C-alpha cells in the first residue's frame, strides 16, 4: 500500500526523530512534519504548536511569541527545509546565484536565522534528494550548521531526512553521517545524488516502515487533527491508508 518513501513512511520516521520531546513547533506549509508532531502528541503527550493553525496555536502575544518561546528554551524540536543544504548543515532559504543579484530568488529566511541557533534539535527535512538541493556549499547561508566556540548556541541541526536517506549531523565535527536509507535505494545512488561528502554507519540499514500501530494512528487521530490545517492532505492520507 505504501512505499518506502511515501508520506506514511516519512511521517513515521520524523515522528521517531521527535521521540518524546516536550514541545514541537511546526512552520507553515509543512504537512508531513505536522503529521509527525501530531503522532508524537497522541503517543507521548508532546505539546504541538502548528504556526498557521488556530486550534494548535497557543500564542496570544502575536507572532513574535514563537520566537520568544524558543528563546526561553521552551521549544525542543523545529523543522527547517531549504533551497539548498550543504555538508556542514548550512541552510539556504534565500536563493541561488550571487547575492544580492540572485539567479533565482526564493521567499527568504523566515525565522531560520534565529531558530536554528536556539532550538535544541532542528530537523532538516527536504524530500528532493539531488545534487541541486544537497550541495557542496550553499550560495547563501541563511543559518550556519555550526558556530565557533563562544557563540551562544544551545541548539542547531540534528538530522537531515530526504526521500532517500536519513543523516545525523555531528555538530562537533560539522559533518553528516548516513544512518539509514530508503529500502529500495542502494548507498551508491545516495552518494551520486548528494553534492557533499558524508560519513556513514557500517552497513547502512534500510529504514523501518510504519508499524500497524503507526498506520492506525495516522488513519485515525492524526488525520483527524491534521484536517484543520491541511484538509486536502489529511483526506488524501486517510484515504490512501484506508
Amino acid at each position, binding site marked *: 500500500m505504501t512505499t518506502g518513501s511515501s508520506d506514511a513512511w516519512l511521517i513515521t520516521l520524523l515522528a521517531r526523530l521527535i521521540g518524546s520531546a516536550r514541545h514541537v513547533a511546526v512552520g507553515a506549509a509543512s504537512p508531513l512534519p505536522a503529521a509527525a508532531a501530531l503522532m508524537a502528541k497522541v503517543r507521548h503527550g508532546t505539546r504541538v504548536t502548528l504556526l498557521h493553525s488556530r486550534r494548535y496555536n497557543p500564542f496570544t502575544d502575536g507572532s513574535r511569541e514563537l520566537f520568544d518561546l524558543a528563546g526561553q528554551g521552551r521549544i525542543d524540536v523545529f523543522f527547517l527545509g531549504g533551497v539548498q543544504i550543504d555538508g556542514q548543515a548550512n541552510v539556504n532559504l534565500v536563493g541561488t546565484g550571487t547575492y544580492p543579484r540572485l539567479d533565482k530568488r526564493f521567499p527568504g529566511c*523566515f525565522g531560520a536565522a534565529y531558530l536554528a541557533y536556539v532550538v535544541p534539535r532542528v530537523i532538516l527535512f527536504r524530500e528532493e534528494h539531488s545534487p541541486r538541493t544537497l550541495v557542496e556549499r550553499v550560495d547563501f547561508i*541563511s543559518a550556519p550548521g555550526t558556530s565557533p566556540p563562544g*557563540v551562544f548556541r544551545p541548539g542547531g541541526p540534528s538530522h537531515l531526512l530526504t526521500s532517500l536517506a536519513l543523516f545525523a549531523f555531528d555538530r562537533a565535527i560539522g559533518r553528516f553521517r548516513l544512518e539509514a536509507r530508503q529500502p529500495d535505494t542502494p548507498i551508491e545512488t545516495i552518494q551520486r545524488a548528494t553534492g557533499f561528502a558524508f560519513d556513514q554507519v557500517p552497513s547502512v540499514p534500510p529504514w523501518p516502515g510504519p508499524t500497524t500501530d503507526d498506520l492506525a494512528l495516522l488513519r485515525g487521530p492524526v488525520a483527524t487533527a491534521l484536517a484543520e490545517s491541511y484538509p486536502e492532505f489529511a483526506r488524501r492520507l486517510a484515504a490512501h491508508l484506508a
Partner: protein
Amino acid sequence: MQGGVDDLAARLPNGALIGVPADYSGVPMALTLALLRRKVRDLRLFCLPTGSLQVDVLIGAGAVVQIETSAVSLGEFGLAPCFSRAVEAGTIKVKDSTCPAMHAQLTATERGIPFMPMRGLLGSDLLAHRADWRVVDNPLQPGDPIVLVPATRLDVAIFHAPLADQEGNVWIGRRRELATLAHAAERSLVTVERVVGGSFFEREETAAGALSSLYVEAIATVPQGAWPLGLGDRYPVDGAAMRAYAKAARTAAGFRTWLDGTLAGVPA
C-alpha cells in the same frame, strides 16, 4: 476620522516607509488597490515579519523601491512572482532579515530604545549584508558576541482588522503584532470589516483584544477588505483567486493584465 478607502489611500504619501502585516494578520488588500489607483510610488516596505500577495502586487506595479523582510511568498500558492522577478532583475533593494529581527526592530521603537539585542544571526550571510546591524561583545558578560538591531520607526502602518468601535478603537484580537506595528508607526491607517456601537473598553472581554484609537489616524470600513486573502476566523483565503493570480503573475505582462482587470473591477 472615518472615511472611504480612497480617503485613507490619500493620506499615505509617496516615498513613505510603511509597515505591512503577514498574510495571517489582516492584510489591507482593498487599501492596497486604492493606493495603486492613486498611483502611489517609491514606497519602502517593512514586513512584520513576512510579505504576502499585497507586497507582490505593490512590487509588480512598480510602486516599491525597497523592502525589508524575512520572506515574501504566496504561502501555499507558491513563490511571489513579481518579488522574485524584481530581485532577479535588480530593480528593487532588498534588506533581507529574519522574523524575530523584524519584530525586534519595531519593539525597539515601541519601547523608545535605540536598539535591541538579538540571539542567532552570527555567521549567517544575512548579517554579512546588513550594515545597520552591529555585533558587539555582551557588556554584561564579555566573551559573548551578540547582534544589535536598530529601532525602525515607520512612517505609516496599514492593516485590516475585523472591527472598530465608535470611538475609533480597533479590535485586533490575538493578532498582537498589529499593536506592535501601530506602536512603532508615526500614523496608522486601518480598514475594518465593520464598525460596532459603543466602546471595546466598556467590557474587559473586548478590551483585551483592542488597540486604542490613540494610535489610529483614520479608519475606513471595507467588508472583505483582505480579499482574496483571508481574515482570521471571519473568512478563508479565496483559493481560486489566489491560483489565478499566481498563474497570471508568472510574467510581467500577465501581471499587468491582472492588475488592470482588478483595478477596473474595483469601484473607485
